[in-house]
């Protein structure tokens, strides 16, 4: 921690860039996040829903976007790009170009008046050119930052010197035609590239007629068509005839798995998003038929296979295993698909709409970009990374996350983003943060017990509110309300000068509660709360009434009624404001030490990542040796050596003084909560004494094992082995110099079937890896792989090709017709084997004589997970793997703060993925332990112990383990460090013993009571 720079530059503000920024900012870094577009959010903002939960994409992304924009540690550079990187790791100087937007972001209030007046229509990029926007525009309706920008290429004032209507329309005087591009230098310790990918442009696949046939659309276009806030408002119609489609076909692998076009990789996400789009489309359009034309269904991620099965069984999505040869257009716009069945028979089917499941590809400008900053790309234009270092680019100090280093879905991008934060943190001069807030505020005035003196401020928002609502009338009404000491109208309440006015009025009128009636608290509450703090009031003495987004904008043609509603909203706000009390965010001291449970690759990587950033770690492993599953892995798909990784990692662990290793040790109890855990560990050997460890966070890396299979004569024959056993045999040279002809590998053993309905993800590549090793050694060996779907996702696809090239034979089998294995001589356990399978293409039985049968047994969550899950109060999924807080955006966190998960404990994954997730878990842990104190939420629940009957209903409904029973007193209490303030417990408590501060029963009842439901109507009816 010498003189290193605290700043970091993050390029690209998609979900990966956002996550990396948030993590690093939480660790105390000064983050510069640069983004070419005028909003952060990236591709994820364009998605309607996300698989496999059908979560609304924007619903889960929006909070992250606003958090990112608000974070004091993050500076956004919009419409900007990185030009060059100079200097050394720890001390870079980066040149950034900020393009002119001609709109002053500090003045623009995103009212949209300019847009209405702008005469120039341009096709909209965010909505995939399915609608038009104006030359002055907001990137999308929920964009962050919210301000507008001018598209210089199309603006009449800029291109031709005429117009300027927007400037006249803008009451905030935000338009500035004098704006110019700027170049700035940013000094930073490290750089993170999160530049993302483009969607493949299917124009090169002439046979599919994209752009020629209107009803052929890409999956991203279809995503926008499905989206309720998209160009068709979720009412899908075919572009050629504006009719809702009767049926829709998805064509998979468009721009993926295509060696001829130099695209010998799998895009990893298309199978799942096609399934998702098919399901959503069927939900949107009654009676719609959806068909997916595919090669293999690659549902390899956590919970993916269940989703696939639901699509098939519950939603009736049809799956056809075939590559579509070409599409022709029928009169009226319908499309005819020409394709071959598996048996070679040709066929055609007609569809109203065809969706091309386009793959992910490198960004258009990536070559120039990589040259300008001197990093290497791989053959496909993705960022090159070394084996076992999935987050490092070829240039020291420059890191990569998200899909730029290879196709990834959202959770993988998020994991890599958190991981990269930890990698980069080592290059930054970060110290443990003493204070929670960076800003100094005057001491808070004590208002407890004082009669409420409410100041009501009614915003005009230019003409956005005042154009519809009679603002002076609302002010007068506010003045008439009980406890309203002062009321005033403001032109733009959120502008700097108006906030000064508010502060002044607080002082002048000795106000102790403030109501602002303006736009939505979702975006503006934090701003006004800060104003209150500056004025020496507790930030929670604030309430907002939303008279713009939910009033004036929604009732533009009914000004009188809108005014009445605004009055009522103000009255409700005042009623609620009367009951607000000052709240404090409880400071929680944080012990900087981490407990890592499990000493496999994931656990070790997490421990090392933390220790290398100067944090102490307790690493507990129940086996006598570190290494876990990695001990059994001898080969990799490429030429890197897993055993070297193992040795080096173990060596690093033992050489690091900050890591205390407990092998042969079990966890007995874990008590406490974020920042303050106490764990008892017990050595398993006889006479070992228990030891108590104190730590601030926990990382669960307990791994998984091979399922103890009994199928395919595994128990009876020594010639039937698992892939891991086979790998060991290969490594030990068992086959060297001995006659061996045939090896049959059977995939999906105890995977993807009733009761064990998940894909073990690794087995396809593992089989191909071992097949290639054997082929290299004994090219004459015949290797058969009996599979259901080959799932060599991402860049692993090339090895699938290589295996075929080398003569490995791939035979598919159906789940209903599993292969059978028989000993040729049933009396002799050493006998060779007969493997019988039905070739679904020929429909014929195939019998193979096998010297060895190798089983890809499923990866199995250990039974002990249950016990640990109970100790930690965290959940498991149906399959026994640990269940993260959110499958998309919180893939290494648990809902309970301060506990993280990585490696196979989470779900099956390969070495690089385990390393990434382990590094991510370390990063997420660092966001906590880099602080000496964290603040709990302010608006949280509390138990009135006088009223509590101790029934425990609150404990059961709390998702965060925050509601607990005090066994001695027999009543409940809320762990303030864990409560998130949802209020589920408060509503479950019939005694009224639990209340949610800031949203108390009393406040809500008085908001309800304040309404004069009968009255106002009669007035307004005229």
């Amino acid at each position, binding site marked *: 921690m010498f003189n290193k720079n605290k700043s970091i530059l993050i390029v690209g503000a998609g979900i990966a860039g956002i996550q990396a920024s948030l993590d690093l900012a939480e660790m105390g870094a000064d983050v510069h996040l640069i983004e070419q577009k005028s909003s952060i959010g990236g591709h994820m903002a364009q998605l*309607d829903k996300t698989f496999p939960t*059908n*979560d*609304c*994409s*924007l*619903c889960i992304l*929006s*909070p992250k976007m606003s958090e990112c924009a608000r974070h004091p540690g993050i500076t956004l550079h919009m419409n900007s790009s990185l030009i060059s990187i100079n200097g050394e790791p720890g001390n870079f100087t980066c040149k950034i170009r900020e393009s002119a937007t001609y709109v002053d972001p500090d003045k623009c209030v995103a009212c949209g008046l300019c847009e209405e007046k702008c005469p120039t229509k341009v096709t909209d990029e965010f909505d995939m050119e399915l609608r038009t926007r104006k030359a002055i525009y907001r990137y999308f*309706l*929920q964009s962050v930052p919210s301000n507008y920008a001018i598209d210089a290429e199309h603006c009449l004032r800029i291109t031709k010197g005429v117009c300027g209507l927007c400037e006249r329309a803008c009451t905030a005087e935000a338009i500035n035609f004098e704006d110019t591009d700027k170049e700035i230098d940013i000094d930073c310790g490290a750089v993170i590239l999160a530049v993302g990918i483009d969607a493949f442009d299917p124009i090169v696949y002439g046979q599919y007629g994209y752009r020629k046939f209107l009803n052929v659309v890409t999956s991203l276009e279809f995503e926008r068509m499905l989206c*309720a*806030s998209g160009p068709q408002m*979720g009412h899908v119609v075919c572009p050629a005839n504006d009719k809702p489609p009767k049926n829709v076909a998805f064509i998979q692998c468009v721009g993926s798995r295509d060696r001829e076009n130099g695209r010998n990789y799998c895009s990893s996400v298309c199978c799942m998003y096609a399934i998702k789009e098919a399901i959503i489309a069927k939900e949107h359009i009654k009676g719609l038929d959806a068909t997916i034309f595919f090669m293999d269904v690659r549902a390899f991620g956590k919970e993916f296979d269940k989703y696939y099965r639901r699509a098939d069984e519950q939603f009736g999505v049809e799956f056809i295993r075939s590559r579509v040869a070409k599409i022709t257009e029928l009169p009226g716009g319908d499309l005819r698909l020409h394709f071959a069945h598996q048996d070679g028979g040709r066929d055609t089917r007609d569809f109203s709409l065809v969706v091309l499941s386009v793959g992910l590809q490198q960004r258009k400008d990536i070559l120039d970009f990589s040259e300008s900053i001197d990093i290497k790309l791989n053959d496909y234009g993705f960022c090159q990374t070394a084996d076992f270092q999935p987050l490092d680019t070829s240039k020291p100090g420059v890191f990569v996350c998200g899909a730029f280093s290879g196709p990834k879905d959202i959770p993988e991008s998020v994991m890599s983003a958190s991981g990269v934060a930890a990698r980069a943190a080592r290059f930054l001069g970060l110290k443990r943060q003493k204070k929670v807030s960076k800003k100094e505020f005057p001491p808070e005035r004590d208002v407890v017990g004082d009669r409420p003196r409410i100041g009501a401020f009614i915003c005009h928002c230019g003409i956005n509110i005042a154009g519809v609502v009679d603002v002076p009338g609302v002010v007068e009404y506010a003045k008439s309300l009980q406890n309203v000491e002062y009321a005033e109208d403001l032109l733009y309440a959120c502008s700097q000068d108006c906030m000064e006015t508010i502060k002044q009025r607080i002082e002048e009128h000795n106000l102790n509660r403030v109501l602002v009636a303006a736009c939505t608290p*979702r975006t503006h509450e934090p701003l006004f709360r800060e104003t209150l703090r500056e004025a020496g009031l507790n930030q929670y003495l604030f309430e907002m009434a*939303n008279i*713009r*987004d*939910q*009033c004036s*904008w*929604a*009732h*533009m*043609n*009914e000004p009188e*009624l*809108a005014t*009445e*509603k605004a009055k*009522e*909203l103000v009255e409700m706000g005042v009623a609620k404001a009367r009951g607000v009390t000052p709240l404090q965010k409880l400071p929680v001291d944080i012990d900087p030490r981490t407990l890592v449970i499990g000493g496999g690759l994931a656990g070790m990587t997490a421990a090392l990542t933390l220790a290398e950033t100067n944090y102490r770690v307790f690493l507990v492993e129940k086996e006598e040796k570190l290494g876990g599953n990695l001990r059994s892995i001898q080969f990799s798909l490429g030429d890197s050596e897993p055993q070297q990784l193992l040795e080096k990692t173990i060596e690093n662990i033992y050489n690091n003084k900050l890591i205390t290793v407990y092998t042969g040790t079990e966890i007995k109890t874990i008590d406490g909560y974020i920042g303050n855990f106490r764990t008892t560990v017990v050595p398993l050997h006889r006479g070992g004494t228990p030891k108590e460890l104190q730590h601030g966070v926990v990382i669960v890396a307990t791994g998984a094992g091979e399922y103890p299979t009994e199928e395919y004569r595994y128990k009876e024959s020594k010639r039937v082995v698992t892939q891991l056993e086979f790998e060991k045999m290969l490594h030990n040279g068992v086959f060297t110099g001995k006659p061996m002809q045939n090896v049959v590998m059977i995939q999906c053993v105890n995977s993807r079937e009733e009761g064990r309905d998940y894909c073990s993800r690794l087995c396809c590549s593992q089989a191909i890896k071992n097949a290639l090793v054997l082929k290299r050694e004994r090219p004459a060996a015949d290797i058969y792989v009996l599979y259901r779907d080959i799932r060599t996702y991402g860049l692993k696809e090339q090895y699938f090709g290589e295996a075929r090239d080398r003569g490995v034979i791939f035979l598919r089998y159906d789940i209903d017709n599993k292969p059978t294995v028989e000993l040729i001589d049933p009396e002799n356990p050493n006998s060779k084997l007969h493997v019988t399978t039905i070739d679904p293409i020929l429909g014929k039985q195939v019998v193979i004589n096998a010297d060895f049968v190798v089983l890809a047994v499923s990866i199995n969550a250990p039974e002990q997970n249950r016990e640990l899950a109970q100790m930690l109060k965290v959940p498991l999924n149906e399959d026994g793997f640990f269940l993260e*807080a959110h499958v998309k955006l919180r893939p290494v966190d648990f*809902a309970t703060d301060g506990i993280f998960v990585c490696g196979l404990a989470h779900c099956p994954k390969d070495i690089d993925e385990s390393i990434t997730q382990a590094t991510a878990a370390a990063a997420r842990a660092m966001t906590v332990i880099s602080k000496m104190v964290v603040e709990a939420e302010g*608006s949280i629940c509390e138990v009135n112990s006088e009223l509590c009957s101790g029934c425990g209903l609150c404990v059961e409904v709390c*998702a*965060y383990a925050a509601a607990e029973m005090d066994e001695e007193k027999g009543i409940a209490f809320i762990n303030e460090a864990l409560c*998130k303030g*949802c*209020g*589920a417990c*408060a*509503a*479950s408590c019939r005694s009224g013993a639990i209340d*949610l501060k800031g*949203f108390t*029963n009393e406040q*809500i*009842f008085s*908001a*309800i*009571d304040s*309404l004069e*439901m*009968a009255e106002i*109507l*009669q007035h*307004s*009816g*005229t």
Partner: protein
Amino acid sequence: MKDEFKPRIIGFLCNWCSYAGADLAGTSRLQYPPSLLPIRVMCSSRVDPLFVISAFLRGADAVLIAGCHPGDCHYQEGNYYARRRFACVRKVFETLGMESDRLRLSWISASEGPRFANVITEYTEKIKKMGPNPAKKNIFL
């Protein structure tokens, strides 16, 4: 002209989805009747059945609870509890011969501005047909 009946609907909107969806409806300038008086709650699971009953007895012509779609809850599973509690209150109303249609539970996501506007428009129409809440005039509650 006689005063036309204009329903008053109290809406408990969850902060993360439905309130955001309502904001989006506004940002998109979708027009819907000014019948809804929103009360923002952090999660639909915050809505105590007594809020609903109280709003109804105070004379609200209808009470709407709106939250994240099942599976989307910002707080893991709050909306599932909200749904059970709602099912219970609704059943109580139904069994007592009260107009349970005056209570509604809708899932509206942050991107469903149009859906929000539709729900309000369509529900307002429906309540208009049902007429004013009889609780409004009754003094013996």
